[in-house]
């Protein structure tokens, strides 16, 4: 792409989603689809995120709340098991953290620069209910 000339692309700033035909989209997982380099699945649209959600699977109950509520389809879940966050598409809105029902939460927001292993090592303890 970088060396493509001024008249070597398709007109209209139009981008193709797939190489060739789409085929059986509904029956094919995202990672197995033949996305083009230009598609918004392949390209990162998350440059402006300043806080990121970190997933700690030790406390996750696979309730799928985060998957349901994420406005950018950025929660990766397979066979109803939470796998992680698609960081190329997550904008850092924090909704997944808000809706997470576990104690402590299985998703927490941290500054973009923080190291994931370090923040998981320092994950908060379970909060005791006040009677």
């Amino acid at each position, binding site marked *: 792409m970088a060396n493509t000339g001024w008249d070597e692309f398709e007109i*209209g*700033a*139009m*981008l*193709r989603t*797939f190489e060739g035909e*789409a085929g059986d989209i509904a029956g094919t997982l995202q990672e197995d689809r033949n996305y083009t380099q230009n598609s918004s699945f392949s390209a990162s649209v998350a440059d402006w995120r300043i806080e990121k959600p970190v997933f700690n699977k030790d406390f996750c109950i696979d309730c799928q709340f985060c998957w349901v509520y994420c406005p950018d389809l950025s929660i990766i879940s397979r066979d109803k098991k939470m796998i992680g966050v698609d960081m190329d598409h997550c904008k850092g809105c924090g909704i997944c953290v808000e809706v997470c029902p576990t104690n402590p939460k299985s998703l927490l927001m941290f500054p973009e620069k923080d190291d994931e292993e370090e923040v998981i090592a320092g994950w908060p303890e379970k909060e005791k209910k006040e009677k």
Partner: protein
Amino acid sequence: MAFDKVELKDIEVWDGNFAASQAMRQCQIDVVAAYPITPSTPIVEGYGNMKANNLIEGEFVMVESEHAAMSGCIGAAAAGGRVATATSSQGFALMVETLYQASGMRLPIVLNVVNRALAAPLNVNGDHSDMYLGRDSGWIQLDAYCPQDAYDMNFIAFKVAEDHDVRLPCMVHQDGFMTSHTAQGVHTLDDDTAYGFVGEFKPMNDMLDFEHPVTHGVQTEEDWHFEHKARQHNDLMTKVLPKIQAAFDDFEKISGRKYNIVEKYDMEDADVAVVCMGTSVETAREVAGEMREKGIKAGVVGLRVVRPFPFFEIAEALKEVKAIAALDRSSPNGAPGMLFNEIAGCLINTPANPMLSGFVYGLGGRDLTKKHLVEIYTQLQANVDAGKLTTPQQQFIGVRGPKLSFL
């Protein structure tokens, strides 16, 4: 859903608006999204009436503004349909943002623009302010001088815009009221011939092609924006005029009516020429004939295609002319008129060295009378006789009070 065809008489008495409505009906448009504004309202009103009477199969979408009208057209065109609408003046101004989207996305929408002045002061009558506002928007702009042209140019517009080598939107301009509301005899095409000329719509990169999904309306920053704009300008500059000429040639075969990218009248031996657009061309033609009876070799050049500007064709038409008047029906607001500038531009690097004077006329529907044109031709001849410009380069014609001129 089946729709009924219409048996037209060979000659119908139509105004420019209804001529455009009928042409739109005959082109079998998939989607018209429209919002009414004087003087273009009867185009979509007439079209809606035909829709209600089952003469049209396509969708008619009533929207809440001209911005929404063109946005709806863009969506429908990206989805993969034949699309058109109509507007004027303030409505056109509200569309401007989306006009650039349509051309940048290479969507072949046809927009009938019934030319009207831009406020303030508010004015519903005809001048070319809205046409001039659109001239950098990346659209093809065709100009009709009378209802017959308004009918015919719609077919040319669809044919050229939808060509896969072009894929650029196209405006068809007609003068507010002078053309849009003046009924004249219009030679018609029968429904099958008309539809046969524009042909079945051939989609390209359409969103409704589910086997080949596409993203339309993407963002490109400094990394790619310039390349897209260069490509668009290249196609407008190099591909469109040959396609328009081919469409004119094909149209002549089915209709017997011959159109040219630049219309020339009495230009074979002309010493003095007026360059203008719209209904003024017809007035100027009449006056040029009368000036010839007085011994002044007068001619008229009319632009049929405003964008892409027919740079070499205009230069060729004017190469032997000694004195030229560029008539701009839009206030240049701080510059020479558009036609003055464009004509100067296309002649500057040629051997031709004519005297060029600019005239601003007809703002807000002020009539351009034969007397005005006699005055212009007389001035041009005086310039020829004196061998130099005898007046300022920019004059106002038909404005009240003492003579107004600049430059």
